[in-house]
């Protein structure tokens, strides 16, 4: 197999194409209503390639992928677990695929039933009172959650509450969400063991507090032990608690955010409930709420009356924050998550949390035994944990990024690097529940081998990767001089 693949423009030859797939030519007459300002002066520069060129190009690209179907992918905070093929198979039933979103309810009872049952199952697994499925990604779900918190305070005439508290161990997206919703972010520290600093929290809350955004287990890979105290302090101050479901995989079937005192939660169905994700989509960021936020849930919702299912719309939910997608969110992702949950059942769901945690703690212990430094050596891991390579960076001048790049040569996707920034030179490692012990052992062996290389021939590690289609990329230059337009190197 070729190790590299050219940009599709490099296959281009004038006049070549897949003629049978061209749209019918558009004449001047059809274009006449288009305002002149919206018409381009020259044709776009598209690649002129044959159908077979396109098929081969994208097939080759897909073969260069590091993916969960080909490689261990312990990308912390991302839950890159196996997506059972059955979920895909059943979601691709023609009755689902050909369903038109504007078809009458009577023609989509099966789909509606799935959505209703998915809402009910998610309510039960999270301990919330109501669930809406329409947000189309994690960030979208976060937006919905904070928008509901704001709507709640406004509905009570409590307009001054515009501050969202974000502990530094929260998910990285939380400050952005609060800002997008027009709130002011107030960051508070965690203590040396990774728990929220309760004194700092007490000092931060007040009549301006809209709520707090928390991840539990936190981004530090540990369970927040003061969660009940956190809930009490924030509730007593009149604020609400937002649970970022980024790390729900760790506690699935074991602990429910609703029981911890959370008022609103978003769930990354694409992570915890195992649909293909990464690289930007598609996702599904369902939101769950407690009693106080029920009236504000986004629409549409699926409802059941007798034996019939129907959509609940704005007219019945006057306080709803409204629609977040044209129809029912990412219907295909929701179906896959639904089938995944049905395949697991209640017992299977508990095993997800158990095995995710067991795998993480096994891997952490093996890496500690191999001489690596845990960032929180006195804490048990949740579904993920942090190793710090500060010692290696200081003593050997080999950084976490160097280790990560070298891992690619050993056939492993790198863990998350340099996040959370709280821990210097860190690797955030999340093995997930779907890996075998043999895979985890092989990963430990690879990291140990790289450690040996770092001590004996560090250049081998600092110049990695050596076997990938491209070598070390200049990410700094790419960020400083962003240029996404392909240009021919020289006219031939």
């Amino acid at each position, binding site marked *: 197999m070729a190790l590299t693949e050219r940009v599709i423009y490099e296959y281009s030859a004038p006049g070549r194409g897949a003629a049978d797939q061209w749209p019918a030519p558009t004449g001047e007459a059809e274009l006449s209503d288009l305002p002149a300002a919206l018409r381009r002066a020259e044709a776009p520069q598209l690649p002129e390639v044959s159908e077979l060129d396109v098929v081969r190009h994208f097939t080759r690209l897909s073969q260069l992928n590091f993916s969960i179907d080909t490689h261990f992918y312990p990308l912390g905070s991302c839950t890159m677990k196996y997506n059972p093929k059955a979920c895909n198979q059943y979601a691709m039933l023609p009755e689902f695929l050909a369903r038109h979103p504007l078809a009458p309810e009577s023609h989509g009872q099966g789909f509606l039933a799935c959505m209703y049952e998915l809402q009910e199952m998610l309510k039960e697994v999270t301990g919330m009172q109501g669930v809406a499925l329409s947000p189309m990604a994690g960030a979208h779900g976060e937006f919905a959650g904070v928008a509901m918190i704001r709507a709640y305070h406004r509905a009570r005439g409590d307009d001054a509450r515009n501050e969202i508290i974000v502990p530094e161990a929260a998910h990285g997206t939380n400050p952005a969400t609060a800002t997008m919703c027009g709130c002011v972010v107030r*960051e508070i520290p965690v203590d040396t063991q990774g728990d929220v600093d309760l004194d700092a929290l007490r000092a931060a809350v007040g009549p301006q507090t809209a709520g707090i955004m928390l991840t539990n287990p936190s981004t530090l890979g540990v369970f927040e032990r003061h969660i009940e105290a956190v809930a009490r302090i924030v509730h007593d101050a009149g604020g609400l608690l937002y649970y970022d479901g980024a790390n729900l995989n760790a506690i699935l079937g074991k602990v429910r955010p609703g029981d911890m005192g959370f008022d609103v939660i978003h769930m990354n169905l694409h992570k915890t409930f195992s649909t293909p994700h990464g690289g930007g989509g598609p996702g599904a960021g369902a939101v769950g709420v407690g009693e106080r936020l029920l009236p504000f849930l986004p629409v549409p919702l699926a409802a059941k009356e007798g034996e019939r299912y129907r959509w609940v719309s704005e007219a019945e939910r006057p306080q709803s924050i409204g629609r977040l997608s044209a129809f029912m969110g990412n219907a295909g992702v929701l179906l896959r998550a639904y089938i995944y949950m049905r395949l697991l059942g209640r017992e299977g769901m508990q095993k997800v949390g158990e095995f995710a945690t067991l795998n993480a703690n096994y891997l952490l212990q093996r890496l500690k035994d191999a001489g690596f430094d845990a960032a929180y050596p006195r804490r048990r891991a949740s579904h993920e944990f942090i190793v710090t390579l500060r010692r290696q960076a200081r003593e050997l001048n080999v950084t976490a990024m160097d280790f990560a790049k070298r891992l690619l040569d050993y056939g492993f996707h790198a863990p998350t*690097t*340099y*996040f959370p*920034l709280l821990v*210097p030179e860190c690797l955030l490692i999340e093995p997930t529940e779907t890996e075998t012990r043999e895979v985890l052992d092989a990963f430990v062996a690879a990291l140990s081998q790289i450690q040996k290389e770092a001590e004996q021939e560090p250049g081998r590690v600092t110049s990695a990767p050596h076997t990938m289609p491209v070598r070390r990329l200049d990410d*700094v230059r790419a*960020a*400083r001089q962003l240029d996404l337009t392909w240009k021919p190197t020289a006219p031939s």
Partner: protein
Amino acid sequence: MSQLPQDLKYTKSHEWVRTRADGSLEIGITDHAQHALGDLVFVEVPEAGRAVKSGDACAVVESVKAASDVYAPVSGEILEGNAQLASAPETVNGDAYGAGWLYRLKPAAGAVQAAQLLSPQDYQKVLDAEAG
């Protein structure tokens, strides 16, 4: 790690503060901070005229690793942001205590005294503690 400039004050969150001849303050991030962040690719500085309170996030430094807020160590009014950094964020990496300053601020009355800034010796202790 280079010597800390002895004529500056510091904060636990790794900002430095220089008192200028006219009593205004110049603020940046320390060499330790730029080193921890790595090569900066984007810097956002505050606009002149903005009133800030001590502890407010008022600038952003972003590297390929992370984006990080820079806090106002002292309450006051922003006089100017360092406009050079928009096109040359690497200046902060190369000259954190000089050309890489982020913004200048006119402190509110009594704000400098209230701010509890650290001496170079005390900031060095913060760094030593972090290094473990």
